[in-house]
């Protein structure tokens, strides 16, 4: 039996998000995944994937892992996110994005994992420069 390498698995998830490879992203989510970041809240993997698809091709998202601590079943990560609008996105959560506009943020995120999938993802915005 191959041991589950939680860190490698997590790095693969971040890589899939950065490549906007949603076919690779989907298997990371448990069906009853609950995700919230303060601006949006989703109660299922279907809803989260719908959210990702909504911005695909309209917003380029680049995530960087600034810090990582884990124990089996839980990851705490410090993540920098840069969003770049590829066109006008008037319906973006929080505030509209104009074509070419970039928005950067840092979040502390706690990921809960069961059976090799995320079951809960909670993000808190970090308000000072890292």
């Amino acid at each position, binding site marked *: 039996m191959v041991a589950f390498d939680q860190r490698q698995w997590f790095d693969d998830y971040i890589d899939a998000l950065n490549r906007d490879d949603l076919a690779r992203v989907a298997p990371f989510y448990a069906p009853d995944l609950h995700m919230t970041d*303060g601006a949006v809240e989703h109660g299922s993997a279907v809803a989260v994937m719908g959210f990702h698809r909504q911005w695909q091709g309209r917003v380029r998202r680049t995530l960087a892992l600034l*810090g990582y*601590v*884990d*124990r089996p079943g*839980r990851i*705490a990560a*410090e993540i920098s996110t840069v969003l770049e609008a590829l066109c006008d996105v008037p319906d973006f959560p929080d505030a509209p994005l104009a074509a070419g506009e970039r928005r950067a943020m840092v*979040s*502390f*995120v*706690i990921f809960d994992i069961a059976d090799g999938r995320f079951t809960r993802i*909670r*993000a*808190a*915005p*970090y*308000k*000072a420069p*890292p």
Partner: protein
Amino acid sequence: MTQPSRFAPDATAAFTRYIAAFNDGDFATACSYYADNIRLTIGNGRVLQGRAEIVRFYTGIRRVTRRTITVLDCFASETRLAAELESEFLAVTDVPDFTSGPLRQGERMYINSFAVYDIDRDHFSRIRAAVFRRVWKRRGDPA
């Protein structure tokens, strides 16, 4: 011979003792966890630099609220500890200029936060908190 770090082998136990000292207002013990150049960023982005500024800030908080921090979870590597905390603030007087918004005597506020503690050998060198959720219990709210 080098003394073993207070965070080894059980960082969680050491962290629990730190939070207990904080809850008791035992700043001498709490400050013993801090490196000389400690830098603490609270949830609203304000930065507290050094032990004296941290003690001054939290002494002020304790003057107007009773604050209890509960460790919901924590885990660590050799250099970093992550914690999910719930802080309850009970206003012991009216606090119109409370950092998260005005509080009236008897009102409570709960902050669920995610915090990251950088560990430099035996001390915290940097502490940063991000607010995940704030819950207010105002007068007249259901119990």
